[in-house]
């Protein structure tokens, strides 16, 4: 099974620490524009949404790359850009339907989440509310299902 960043929007407080932590580690400066994870705040609707690359099983970016610079590594499941091969043509940017791979002016290369290359992702390390976790198992999904199960259980009478 593949490790993924698991996101629970209900726990987000809109602090954007994930963007700060990601850019500081991966771009060497605190620059949300360089982050590979994105947090948007909708105060009037009381919703805070965080998104990042979900490391697709059959990635659009990989399929679209004319230089084969993007590969999904089988062991870890991480989709990575080989900067040596990337020519900065932006085909992947256009192909990804989620906007999770982008072109960086200062490097001239495509850039995306690589789950911090096997370290605990820095966004997860710094997330103050455990809105972000990392794991093979989709624990937040299990929790959601259990909440539903418990609602059902509470509604059952003895037969």
């Amino acid at each position, binding site marked *: 099974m593949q490790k993924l960043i698991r996101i629970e929007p209900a726990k987000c*407080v809109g*602090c954007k620490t994930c963007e*700060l*932590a990601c850019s500081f580690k991966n771009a060497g400066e*605190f620059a949300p*524009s*360089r982050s590979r994870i994105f947090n948007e705040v909708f*105060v009037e609707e009381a919703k805070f949404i965080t998104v990042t690359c979900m490391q697709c099983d059959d990635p659009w970016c990989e399929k679209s790359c004319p230089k084969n610079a993007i590969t999904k590594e089988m062991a870890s499941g991480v989709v990575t850009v080989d900067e040596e091969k990337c020519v900065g043509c932006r085909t992947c940017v256009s192909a990804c339907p989620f906007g999770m791979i982008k072109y960086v002016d200062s490097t001239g290369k495509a850039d995306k989440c690589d789950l911090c290359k096997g370290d605990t992702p820095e966004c997860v390390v710094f997330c*103050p*509310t455990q809105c972000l976790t990392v794991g093979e198992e989709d624990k937040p999904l299990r929790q959601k299902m259990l909440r539903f199960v418990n609602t059902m259980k509470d509604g059952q009478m003895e037969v």
Partner: protein
Amino acid sequence: MNKAWKGKLLRVDLTEGTCKVEALNEEWANDFIGGRGLGSKYFTEEVSPEVEPMSPENNLIMATGPLTGTYGAANGRYMVITKSPLTGTIACSNSGGYFPSELKYAGFDMIIFEGKSEHPVYLQIRDGKAELVGAVHLWGMSTNDTEDAILSEFHGDAKVASIGLAGEVGVHFAGIINDKHRAAGRSGVGMVMGSKNLKAVAVRGTGGVKIANPKAYREAALDTYATLKENPVTGEGLPALGTAVLVNVMNQNGGLPTRNAQSGTFEAAEDISGEALVSGELRRIKSCMGCIISCGRVTKITDPRYVGEGEGPEYETLWALGAACGISDMPAIIKANYYCNEYGMDPITLGSTIGCAMEMFEKGIISEEEIGMSLNFGDGDAMVKLTEMTGKGEGFGKKIGLGSYRLADSYGVPELSMSVKKLEFPAYDPRHVQGMGLGYATSNRGACHVRGYINSAETLGLPEKLDPEATEGKAGVLKVFQDYTAAIDSAGVCLFTTFAMGIPQLANFCNAANGTDLNDAGILEIGDRIYNLERMFNLKAGIDPSQDKLPKRMLEEPLPDGPSKGNVSKLPEMLPDYYEVRGWGSDGIPTEEKLQSLGLA
């Protein structure tokens, strides 16, 4: 070496309509850290203390700190420095949200506004470039509508700080609102912005903040985040209940000034508490940029009389629009708080001024005819109506817009204004928390809780418990709070971190960020330097030490209720001690020696 300062300031001449980029004065940045300190240094070097606050000769400075835009300890603040039209003192109002960090990402540590534009304008900044553009179409708009209009015409990801109608019509306590719900609230900085015909500042930045020693910075951040999480106030109380955690606490202690400070307890405090908010209007909790405390309250009201959604209220607002006016009507308080954000006004001064007017009304000093309605304590609907009238500068709202001192003074009863240096004091009765009273009297912007929050020790027991009613030793402790606060404000860090974060942790951040080697004493010395710089400006502006006082009610009318019943403020006992620990003469004036030791002579 990388430094967390961007090394650039933007100088905007509103009279000429020009924007120039200047190098930041590094020597001053080292001596004053940034933010409040560095902004005040620039301000006092460039503006005469005698300047008329509403004249083009008064400058308005927006200053970030070196740590603004980074992670580690709620590092997302900026400060607005100018001469206050409300108090005549140097003003420094502080706000979080996302706007301050964006200013750094756009490449600037600071903006200095000079002069006055002939017609309404706003400033657009995009990655190191800036220009003034027309704002006639925005003039008269609420801060909400202004922000929405700018996002659609300039850049969808821009961050915006603006004034509402209150700043345009000359409300003396108009603030500058950023990100719709965050305020550089006090002292009327929004009125100065309005006097310059400057409607808003919009920033889009795709750059970043670099750090001298990234590894040390990351370690400092992990260490401080753990400290903040473990602390009962920053890790539990503030996230769960917001600053409103204090309503019940201060009320039970008998220190919640009620009905224009005629008593220290409010019988309906429960109804306006943080707990009530959680079980009612609270939708979720929220942080500012890079903050893990999450004191922000995202709320919604669906009362038949009032609807709306937004952020807040926080403790001071619940008190000012609530207990200070004898009001327990939560939907009314929340609606008035939304109005404060939309019109751009300080709810503390507003609520305290309405409370003052209510007392004057009940005592027959102001008539119903003059106000246009009755104005009894406890009337939430009247308070909301008056809030709207104040924001628009209509009818009796014009008089409320002068603040409580000018209002009460114009009727010959200045003693009914609960203010120091014409700034209304916040939600801590100085007859109960004695140190806070000394803080109000000696704060450089008038009565204020965020210039030295000794209540942290007196009520919350952080960093250690002090008897709130004691006076001995308070002067020395208050000085440390005041100096540390000045340094925190200057770094761009939220004051709320200091419930948990000690001076060594701030020093670690500053040193890792800028490659300096500050120690605890160095941090406090910078704080002391800033405090004395502000004090000297005020003295030269004609605010003499006789103004280091409290309203007569605090000194002569004993608290009629609560655990501190019978107490008055013992300010006269504490003030001489304070002057002494500050190294000032017994006349309250910094000595030549003191100024020389701080490099201010």
